[in-house]
């Protein structure tokens, strides 16, 4: 499958402008014969929403989605949005459009609420990690901080996910002589998912600034069993075109069979024992 990651800078709270940017990128991806286009977390709204969330959150029946559904007749689309599913209850959501319909929603469960982050002040946490189909592949979505909890990717792993998609708004931070430590964080997880969960993993991070906070980009593809094989620029806008090959997942599983040997029932028993002791 020919995928394209859009590493761009949304305008904070300007839905109209961002929707225009989405349509333009999607139209270009259709012209370039891509099959799936993936935008970063909260791509339609920007990140530090604060009180803006209540002003601009998108409703389930909003006109924006009709446009996305129409475009999805020609290409699969994943975008990030503040989604007000019920009055006053807003989720940090990832939406998947395909074959003319909105087909899957992932609601971010792990909402960071420390330091510069205040997502729990804005969003209601989601509760599930459900897979969905992209063509013949089983896919799962993680949003930003969820990527940093390996147990959450594990939930997709045991659902036999072939393609894991991580969308992010990661602020670049932690400068040192080796560079920016936050870049290493995401890339380490890319290596882990690829090597130990044997998933093809596409990480899509935004760029640009919001009141001095810069988002680092560095989107990448990690192939099952091979680690990171392609990476977009750090800091700057970029587009990452990659080919997802389901055969890589099979090869990786056959090589060391982590999925075959995994014992989720044992994990469940042990969790029950530990939590309910």
């Amino acid at each position, binding site marked *: 499958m020919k995928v394209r990651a859009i590493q761009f800078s949304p*305008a*904070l*709270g*300007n839905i109209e402008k961002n929707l225009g940017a989405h349509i333009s990128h999607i139209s270009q991806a259709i012209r370039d014969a891509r099959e799936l286009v993936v935008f970063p977390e909260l791509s339609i709204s*920007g990140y*530090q929403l*604060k*009180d*803006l969330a209540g002003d601009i959150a998108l409703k389930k029946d909003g006109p924006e989605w009709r446009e996305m559904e129409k475009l999805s007749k020609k290409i699969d689309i994943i975008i990030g949005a503040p989604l007000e599913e019920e009055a006053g209850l807003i989720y940090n959501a990832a939406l998947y459009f395909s074959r003319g319909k909105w087909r899957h929603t992932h609601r971010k469960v792990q909402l960071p609420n420390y330091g510069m982050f205040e997502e729990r002040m804005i969003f209601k946490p989601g509760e599930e990690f459900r897979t969905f189909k992209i063509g013949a592949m089983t896919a799962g979505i993680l949003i930003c901080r969820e990527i940093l909890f390996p147990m959450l990717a594990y939930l997709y792993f045991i659902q036999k996910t072939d393609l894991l998609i991580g969308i992010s708004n990661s602020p*670049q931070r932690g*400068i*040192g*002589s*080796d*560079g*920016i430590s936050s870049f290493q964080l995401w890339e380490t997880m890319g290596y882990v998912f690829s090597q130990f969960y044997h998933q093809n993993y596409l990480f899509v991070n935004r760029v*640009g*600034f*919001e*009141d*001095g906070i*810069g988002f680092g980009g560095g989107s990448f593809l990690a192939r099952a069993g091979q680690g990171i094989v392609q990476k977009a620029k*750090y*800091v*700057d806008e970029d587009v990452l075109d990659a080919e997802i090959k389901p055969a890589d997942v099979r090869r990786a599983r056959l090589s060391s069979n982590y999925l075959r040997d995994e014992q989720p029932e044992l994990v469940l028993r042990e969790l029950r024992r530990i939590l309910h002791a």
Partner: protein
Amino acid sequence: MLKIRCDLVEKILVSSIRDSIYKNGFKNAIIGVSGGLDSAVVLALCKKALGVSHIFALLLPYRVCAPESLEHGKLACESCKVAYEVIDISPAVDAYFDRFPAENRLQIGNKCARERMSVLYDFSVRKKALVAGTSNKSELLVGYSTQFGDSAAAFLPIGDLYKTQVFELARYLGIPEAIIAKKPSADLWPGQTDEGEIGISYHDLDLILHLMIDKRWDEGEIVERGFALAIVRRIKKMIVASQFKRTMPPVCKLHARTVGIDFRYLRDWNK
């Protein structure tokens, strides 16, 4: 411990300067160039970000400033090939103190800093430019600045770099050695140096600040590292005492949503 990857820092800061200027509908930046290191670095970064024809520098000496400050200010501009203008602020500052004599030299220093701010903001309109600030992280944290004076700016490109890191970046950017080599000074009065006034070298100050703020080490851990308890406590006191310089003035809350308290929007709202 405070070493930085200068190429990456330069890339991020250049990108952030472009963002601050263009997002707000401007093309130009104006910078008060003192002859010191911070403004020379900000000048060089702004030039890389916006292009030489979009940068304007003002040199704003007061009559008691060290003559080398003006020389080094010109050197900073000329080495970047940036257009500049020298405006002596002495007549304006002296006119005020002739009427209301100063009681101490700090008062004069603060007045000079605010006069420079006033001229910079007026010229920002003339030049259709935003004022690029030159405060670094060390001085922001200990409050070594004049409120509404040198701390006033539209954005602070090097505000998250400690002074020792600004030195490292300056060498990477090729800032003239004469500017790098001299002792940092606010130049508010003859012979003043930052380190003399703060009472500690930037090397030690920055390390203590980094451990205290970025690494969240407690007092005992920093002392174990080899710093005197009295110094650590004095720095902590300076940080606490200057918090007012880093926040907007408190608004007395009366309504359901109050500016500065729970009317929560970024500057980049809708941009």
